[in-house]
């Protein structure tokens, strides 16, 4: 009997800063077609809170007057959005077709081993969050990893440790 994997639940967090909710409300207030702009609102919210805990998604649902299940459906569909807290740096490994055939899965495995996390998880020192993402649109540079907004192209397996070390040393 295979062990059940738990459905990843959305992180719940109390005492989120009120001023960030105010900023979010201000942003939502300025949009005329609120329901049609859900993705933009989620982007803004993630920019403000760094991730989308349950309280934030529920807040958006009530502000925009759409079901919470719909907000969650959209937030869980796009790999860009994360419901769990993230580390200082996010390492995204592209698993799009071009990167995959050039071995991005091996790079991903190497990172999992190095950082001791699974996809979507954050390291114990809260420094890195590891994610696998779909095509980032730079297939000519495959395989690609991104650390925050910086793109590393034509990454070789032996480069990985060095890239991570750079960020660790920067602390």
């Amino acid at each position, binding site marked *: 009997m295979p062990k*059940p*994997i738990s*459905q990843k639940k959305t992180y719940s967090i109390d005492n989120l800063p009120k001023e960030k909710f105010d900023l979010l409300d201000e942003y939502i207030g300025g949009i005329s077609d609120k329901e049609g702009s859900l993705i933009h609102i989620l982007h803004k919210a993630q920019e403000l809170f760094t991730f989308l805990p349950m309280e934030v998604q529920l807040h958006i649902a009530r502000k925009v007057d759409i079901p919470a299940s719909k907000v969650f459906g959209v937030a*869980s*569909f*796009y*790999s860009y959005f994360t419901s769990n807290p993230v580390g200082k740096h996010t390492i995204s490994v592209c698993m799009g077709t071009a990167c995959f055939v050039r071995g991005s899965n091996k790079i991903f495995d190497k990172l999992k081993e190095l950082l001791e996390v699974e996809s979507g998880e954050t390291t114990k020192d809260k420094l890195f969050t590891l994610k696998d993402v779909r095509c980032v649109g730079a297939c000519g540079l495959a395989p690609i990893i991104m650390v925050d907004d910086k793109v590393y192209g034509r990454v070789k397996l032996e480069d990985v440790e060095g890239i991570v070390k750079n960020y660790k040393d920067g602390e």
Partner: protein
Amino acid sequence: MGKINIVFNDMKLEVDEGTTILEAAKNIGVHIPTLCHLDLEGFGIVNQVASCRVCVVEVEGRETLVPSCAEKVYEGMVIHSDSIKAMSGRRMAVELLLSNHPKDCLSCAKNLECELQSLAQELGIRDIYWEGERLKYKKDTSTFSLIKDPNKCVMCRRCETMCNEVQTCNILSAVNRGFESFVGPAFNMDMADSACTFCGQCVAVCPTAALTEMDNTTQVWNELVNPKKHVVVQIAPAVRVAIGEMFGLEPGTVTTGKIVTALRKLGFDGVFDTNFGADLTIIEEATELIHRINHKGTLPMLTSCCPAWVKFFEHQFPDLLDIPSTCKSPQIMFGAIAKTYYAQKKNINPESISVVSIMPCLAKKAEAKRPELTKDEQSNVDIVITTREFGRMMKSAGIDFVNLPDGEFDKMMGESTGASIIFGTTGGVIEAAVRTAYEWLTDKELEDVNFKQLRGMEGIREASVFIGEMELKIGIAHGLGNARKLLEDIQSGKSKFHAIEIMACPGGCIGGGGQPYHHGNMEILRKRQEALYVDDENKVHRKSHENQEIIKLYKEFIGEPYGKKAHELLHTHYVARQKI
């Protein structure tokens, strides 16, 4: 409507503009298999997401196969549903669905009722070429009513259509993406923590066992073999016109007598009709309505028999809690009387009485567990099973249902009127209430008890009944989306009704989430409804207040309708809940 010429499997046809390929096929008797498609004809409910690709056909000039359920015909269209390309396309769609589907059919809750299983059988699939990875999500068993197993979800989205578009509860949504996707509530919360009403319409339309009822039959068997227990059972009106379907009888066959005999064979110590509880409900509800009208109380008064509807307004309209009647539902009223009056008369310790309900409904399971309805730690109703579970119990006991002789309910509390029978269909509760309210308000005998203007299948109905000089304005809604519209009118002060009846399921209890599966055939619901009205007409007494056993109950035990004891035993209150 314009006509369009098409060629279908080499036949030249003229069809209406706007027809889908699937509809065109149906008209000429060509069968195209479907899975995600669901058309609840007459209810305006169509699930047309074309996600399963099981119904694909070949259209000349088109490179890829097209889903016949969603594709409309156009002038000159040449369609092949019987070409090798079309057939193998459909077959591949089913094989791919099976490639990651659990293969525990033998012990699955939907064994022989599963539409995916039927498809595999229909298409003669013997080998599956692709053995895919399996999902390993946890089952959600958090509620008293239903079980959600995401691993068996085929993403047909029928449950979403029912939950969001028909019922407007908005609990279910597609979660995640690609292989990991399934249908679930917001934030992956337990269904028990969501605003789910447990109406069970998602279960009623799920083609597989991704959504099924919580099975409580084991508990019933355990009670039946416990010598210390006096086990009584009640059956709801809608059960008697549907259970026969599980044994090959025509939908709408009235099987009350056979059910009684079967229940006695199964070993129940007392066999009762929820209709007795329904007659009791009418006495209380009609009194409450008259009281509200005479004392300028809150109007409109809304019925409160349907537990899914009760939970719906608690979550969605928490500011309107004083609108519904305070009457408990018939099943709960029956439980309360069984544990008091019946216990006293029979000289049985209420603690040793176990009340089992057989209901067409999943929400009734959750209702029986509501804290305020479980008085003195002694549940008013102990176990609720659905029509389907009852059918399975009879099958496992080897009961030859079709050939059973008719039995009679217990004598005490065994009488019921025609008014209570129609509780099982939309419009029935309010018609029953009007029959009694009329006579009480006018002091005259009601000559024609049939209020045909209250009957039908339209989602929202309005009617006026003249009671002497007074015009009683009545609203009726079935389906929670329709109920929402009536409630929004109340909220905005636009409502013009005195009384409103609401039932959560399409058609009322006859279309409940615990009834034998209709597999999208709405004719079944109509036949069940018709049967209830026929059964009503065959009764000597057709007004609740003429029920002799009810009159006796008030005289010997309860006292005044809507009085002090009645309030303690038969009335309840509601709780404001979160919308999530």
